[in-house]
């Protein structure tokens, strides 16, 4: 083992300090493991903080008819039956306790008049199911988990990026990365590693995601030989801001519609009537996003190419109390008073349903000792995620991953780290400094975003996807030659040069999977194959690395047990 670098040893190493990572850390600590959490930003800034609308759990505080069964059914139907049924079942059953647990750690959700946790309506949920704190539920959740983790004594490595997972034979051995601050390298030795790195939105131009969402975890796992699942399913949230340009893509919470917001086009028509007359504005996100996109494309969009979302028919005080950050966001960034005027909204790349393939019970990947949870993992949401199901996903499967990783660490011996692997990782990282010519990583990133936005967006077609693959080859070539200026000390250009590699890997997996799936299902809409295909409904796309090439294969979905089948047939 190389001692040239700062080294830290843990039973369980968690990459990512969002909701899933912190929940995993808490559980692993509770089971006696020595836990380290590595995160690219400061603690408490992870993308979870931006979750607004709420956390879905069938507590039946508002609608007494709710229970895990309807929640399970909604999740499966929302995911167009492509979900891992066992994950959907565990999620619906366990999310209730996970929310109660948050409350017991100090979270303060909005209340019903009889003193329970208040729940609100959301798209695709049959009952009022989202526990929330105004429109800042994610902040409440991350602060609660952060405080709990700190209290339990978790070691947090802030502003540290992992660039490579280390292996000892087939099993996981740790990770290698750099401190963003000083640019020094660091290695972690661990018996179990959990990937909780979140999403991939930064590969698209219009996105609600932060700079961190570059698909690191998926790319790391892929490089380490793990399988990626259903990468074609990228959720475009129907309502992102569209004007002014600087705020394009910033999320407008679904809670606006949950609280009664209406969508209209420039003719003043409530166009959802045409697309989903039953659920209207509270249809699933894939449907609403496509509807807005279609309205705009057919010339009925707003001035800046969006639809109007109006909540001004509700009392101003109510809007300010229930949607405070939306009120401020529009007032300060767009000069729009949402208590008086409609918002202009349009689709924005928001969430990755696909990701690392994991076992439902343990969250373990196909690599022994490597686990994944949260947005980085796949399975729960199938072809489309319901709003509110991601926060519950984080705590349900974060906990399961933390538990399984701690148990795994108890069973295995300390791994060995291969020094040559580390040297290669170091060389890869330093390469951009040796480029004398070459372009800025920002230029390559911009072109990647433009390309993915126009060719692998909401609506897809074979020719576009093939062009995208060709473009990706060119971008990969350019990315190997990017030049980094300045020193290793807190150098965003250098950091981007590395993140770019992850984005390219993930973008390729998305594009290849999208090309393969010749049907339209949930968030994946093919203009050339507009309908559901029965055969594709029975299989998942698996992406795996074979040598230096990306291989795609289809595997049959596990059959649904009869009791769950009965639930879904109802």
């Amino acid at each position, binding site marked *: 083992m190389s001692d040239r670098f700062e080294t830290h040893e843990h039973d369980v190493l968690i990459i990512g300090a969002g909701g899933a990572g912190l929940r995993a850390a808490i559980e692993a600590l509770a089971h006696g493991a020595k836990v380290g959490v590595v995160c690219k930003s400061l603690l408490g800034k992870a993308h979870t903080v931006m979750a607004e609308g709420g956390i879905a759990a069938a507590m039946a505080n508002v609608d007494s008819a709710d229970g895990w069964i309807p929640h399970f059914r909604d999740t499966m139907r929302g995911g167009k039956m492509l979900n891992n049924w066992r994950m959907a079942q565990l999620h619906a059953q366990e999310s209730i306790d996970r929310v109660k647990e948050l409350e017991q750690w100090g979270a303060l959700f909005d209340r019903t008049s009889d003193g329970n946790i208040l729940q609100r309506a959301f798209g695709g949920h049959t009952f009022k199911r989202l526990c929330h704190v105004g429109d800042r539920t994610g902040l409440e959740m991350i602060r609660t988990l952060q405080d709990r983790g700190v209290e339990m004594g978790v070691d947090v490595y802030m502003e540290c990026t992992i660039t490579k997972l280390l292996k000892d034979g087939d099993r996981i051995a740790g990770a290698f990365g750099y401190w963003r601050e000083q640019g020094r390298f660091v290695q972690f030795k661990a018996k179990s590693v959990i990937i909780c790195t979140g999403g991939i939105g930064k590969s698209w131009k219009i996105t609600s995601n932060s700079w961190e969402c570059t698909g690191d975890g998926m790319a790391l796992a892929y490089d380490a030989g793990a399988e990626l699942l259903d990468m074609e399913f990228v959720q475009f949230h129907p309502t992102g801001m569209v004007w002014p340009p600087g705020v394009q893509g910033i999320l407008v919470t679904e809670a606006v519609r949950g609280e009664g917001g209406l969508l209209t086009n420039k003719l003043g028509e409530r166009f959802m009537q045409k697309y989903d007359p039953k659920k209207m504005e509270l249809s699933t996100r894939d449907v609403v996003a496509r509807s807005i996109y279609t309205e705009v494309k057919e010339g009925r969009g707003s001035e800046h190419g969006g639809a109007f979302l109006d909540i001004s028919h509700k009392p101003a005080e109510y809007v300010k109390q229930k949607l405070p950050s939306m009120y401020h966001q529009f007032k300060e960034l767009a000069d729009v008073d949402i208590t008086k005027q409609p918002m202009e909204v349009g689709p924005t790349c928001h969430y990755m349903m696909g990701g690392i393939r994991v076992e439902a019970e343990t969250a373990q990947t196909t690599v022994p000792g490597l686990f994944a949870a949260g947005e980085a993992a796949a399975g729960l949401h199938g072809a489309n995620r319901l709003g509110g199901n991601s926060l519950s996903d984080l705590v349900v499967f974060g906990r399961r991953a933390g538990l399984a990783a701690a148990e795994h660490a108890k069973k295995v011996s300390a791994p060995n780290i291969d020094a040559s692997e580390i040297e290669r990782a170091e060389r890869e990282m330093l390469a951009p400094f040796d480029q004398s010519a070459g372009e800025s990583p920002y230029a390559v990133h911009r072109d990647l975003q433009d390309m993915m936005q126009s060719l692998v967006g909401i609506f897809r077609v074979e020719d576009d996807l093939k062009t995208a693959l060709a473009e990706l080859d060119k971008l990969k070539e350019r990315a190997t030659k990017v030049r980094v*200026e300045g020193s290793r000390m807190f150098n965003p250009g250098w950091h981007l040069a590395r993140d770019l590699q992850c984005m390219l890997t993930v973008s390729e997996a998305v594009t290849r999977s999208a090309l393969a799936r010749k049907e339209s299902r949930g968030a994946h809409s093919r203009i050339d194959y507009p309908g559901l295909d029965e055969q594709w409904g029975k299989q998942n796309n698996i992406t795996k690395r074979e040598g230096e090439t990306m291989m795609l294969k289809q595997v049959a979905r596990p059959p649904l047990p009869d009791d769950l089948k009965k639930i879904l047939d109802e």
Partner: protein
Amino acid sequence: MSEAVMQVFRGNREGGSPVEFRVPITPGMVVLDALHHIQGHQAPDLAVRWNCKAGKCGSCSAEVNGRPRLTCKTRMDALPTDQPITVNPMKTFPVIKDLVTDVSWNYEVNKKIPAFKPKAGTDWKMYQEDIDRVQEFRKCIECFLCQDVCHVLRDHDKKEFAGPRFMVRTAALEMHPLDSADRIPLVKKELGIGYCNITKCCTEVCPEEIHITDNAIIPLKERVVDEFYDPIAKLVRKITGAK
């Protein structure tokens, strides 16, 4: 297209100076957009912290034209264009590089505060009127602008004082209707609330509009008075046997 002149601090622990950049202005642009434009086209190694770009994560704190601000919520069209727009790192914390400062001290202070400790045997019923106060404090996004502007930390370098952020956190715990721990002695001693002279700059800079001074610090000061400086209240407590 009009242009803005940005004067951005560039440097590290050893030293540094303002550097001028010209940036095209687009409608609705914020200072963080301008910094990103500089990164993307002129200085790819310009160090800036940011995450959500929507005022929800509290990462992009800096001092714009001398005022502590979230750069993602500072509109360019709200700033005078007759002079360059200056962007400097938070003064209270040591510079790491450019606009990135070492805020690790805050995380150390945070560890001193005992976590939420629920009352034994509670049924977890809570009413909105009991938590409204606390929910205001829980809006805090930990941008540390209040810590930056607080003159006790900024000018006097008094680490004996935990700073406004941690008064807010402690107030949230102390006023939680189901919490059973007593942090008031801690507030007086280890967190040093007496150093605060309630000059309210923290409240002025808070991007979440938390009334830090009126709703968190002063109520905590009054609770400290209850326990330490009010002989009559003490006597009454003794006689009635109340807590």
